[in-house]
């Protein structure tokens, strides 16, 4: 079973690689830094006997990402499972980012995800089987004064996966989308948060356990579903005063 993970070198992507290697998936790992990929691939081979291929590419540019993936997607074994746990945020994403800073944010969180899915989708549809798994953020529930571009990209991603699910509904390709709460990664490291963080390994186990199921948007951990339901209902007069 051939599985492509874009954003595989750290956090949820790395945990997914381990969980899937333990289940004998043949993996193609994509991340920016060759050193991280090589270390992870070596570990997966030695620890799980996994078949692993690595592609170093920067998701800040969808064009260069697709170029790096090109040979693998056209010549290699067809991709059956596509995991897209990539994301990037900035502490200065407060509405003052220059286009040069905002565009990579939009690309990593949205543009490159769409580019990879669009490239892989025809073959998966033709095969009538496979999984496409996207990862959003609770930041997309309702916009606020921080993570402005990031939240917009993740909201767009939710819409994209909603459409994708509709597009693949009768095809045999399953589309899953997880709105992640706080996860113990570099993105949340050192932040004082209101609720506990989930471990990437736990997230990965939940995702892999429900692979092959037709699932729409789900919250992980599930208790974030309460915030997902209530926060949009909060009157603007109250919401505008919130500091978070």
């Amino acid at each position, binding site marked *: 079973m051939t599985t492509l993970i874009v954003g595989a*070198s*750290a*956090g949820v992507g*790395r945990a997914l690689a381990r969980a899937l290697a333990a289940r004998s998936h043949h993996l193609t790992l994509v991340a920016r*830094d060759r*050193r*991280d990929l090589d*270390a*992870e691939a*070596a*570990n997966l081979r*030695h*620890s799980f006997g996994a078949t692993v291929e690595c592609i170093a590419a920067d998701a800040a540019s969808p064009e260069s990402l697709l170029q790096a993936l090109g040979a693998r997607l056209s010549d290699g074994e067809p991709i059956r499972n596509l995991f897209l746990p990539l*994301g*990037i*945020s*900035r*502490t*200065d994403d407060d509405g003052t980012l220059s286009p040069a800073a905002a565009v990579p944010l939009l690309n990593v969180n949205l543009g490159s995800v769409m580019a990879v899915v669009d490239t892989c989708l025809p073959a998966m549809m033709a095969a009538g089987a496979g999984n496409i798994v996207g990862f959003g953020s609770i930041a997309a529930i309702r916009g606020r004064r921080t993570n402005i571009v990031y939240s917009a990209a993740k909201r767009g991603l939710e819409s994209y996966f909603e459409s994708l699910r509709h597009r693949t509904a009768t095809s045999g390709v399953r589309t899953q989308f997880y709105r992640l709460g706080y996860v113990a*990664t*570099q*993105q949340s*490291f*050192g*932040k004082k948060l209101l609720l506990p963080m989930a471990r990437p390994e736990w997230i990965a186990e939940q995702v892999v356990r429900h692979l092959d199921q037709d699932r729409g948007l789900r919250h992980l951990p599930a208790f974030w579903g309460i915030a997902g339901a209530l926060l949009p209902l909060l009157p603007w007069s109250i919401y505008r005063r919130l500091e978070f």
Partner: protein
Amino acid sequence: MTAESARWPAGAISRRHLRSFDGGVGIECEVQCPDRYAFFEPSGTARHAIPRGAGLSYSAASFGADAVSVEIGAFDRILAFEPAVPIVEVEAGITLGALFRFLAAHRLYLPVQPGHGAISIGGCIAADVHGKNQARDGTFINQVEAIRLFHPDHGMVELSRTQNPDVFHATCGGYGLTGVIVVARLRPRPMTGDAVDITTHIVPDALEGARLLRHLARESDFVYSWHDFTRTGRGFGRGYVVAARFVTTDTASRGSSTSMKVPKLSADSPRVPPISALNRWTMPLLNFAYFQAQRRHSSPRRSTLPQSMFPVQGSESYFRLFGPAGFHEYQVILPHDGFAEFLAGVRREIARKGIAVALASAKLFVGAHDLLRFSGEGICFALNIPRNQRSADFLAALDQMTIGLGGRPNIIKDSRLPRSVLEASFPECDRFRGIVQRWDPSRRFRSELSSRLGL
């Protein structure tokens, strides 16, 4: 991923209260937890930092008031494995437990490792820890083939006995002061069995225990002694010597190694009783019960490899019983001809200061001493006592006895160890300082331990 800055160590910072495992030192510190190799880029504008493995050092070796603690736990991978040699190359954040599981599947093991699987390989190298038979296996450096060390001024540097040998030797047992150990090439050894037969020899005192250690060390895979120092009169120091050997049994025993689970161990345990449960009244009872329990065991008795390699696993609550103040571990190597005098002195000071000893244990050490490593010839003797008002005076008296007898304390086990004792008992202290100074003139790596000891 977050926005990066050029100053090393760059990335997200967390403020945490870090504590030495013995509870003696607690400091509000800055912590980083990198998970990508991009973190290890040379930088001319570095802050003070100190690497941190599992954070289980008894002394404050992995944190300090003015240093960023760089946690390497995310670097926990097996990078290369050559079973025919055998050599395994790992990232330094991998735990002993994880590596043990991997090696056990290939019928290999590291002969030198401390008693809990949660400890990191990087920590083992930085403290040059010993195992259960130092006399046969040496210390951790003996199984280290090479190290990849990061220093912001030098970048990633290969260290071995032939490449940068001075820095290699100062890094093994260098307490993180030469840089961040990122990768280590280790030499495991073939397992000569898949279970362990443990023989318990009752001894009347610690001196007889030392004599038996000398006799049993050559023919045992593990050997150490335990003694009851809460008894008075002729029973003082009675105990037993444990000698263990690998034996071949069946595949069921093998399975227990490859599936071993490592219990959590932390310097910041959330469930600590408000006062010490180990005191002058409870300790004699507990020691008595422990001695009797060991005596009732059949001998030899069969044990699994995980139980024998990691005897502290499953006994994590022992450390919590000392209460919020924590405990002291006093571990020294004493010349053979001074051991009897040391024991007499310890006994005298216990009686004089009303000290309750929770644990007394000994091992045999052989070989030469070098730099700041806990190594050399003699009897390695360890005491655990509760940290209280009397304990400081007691340990100060033991320090003087150790210096007087030509002994050497274990730097990593004692968060209180004064600089004067270090300098009086480690003749190569200045040579270590010189190597580190030449390697790192701006001294980018520092910790509470290095500040306290003037390293």
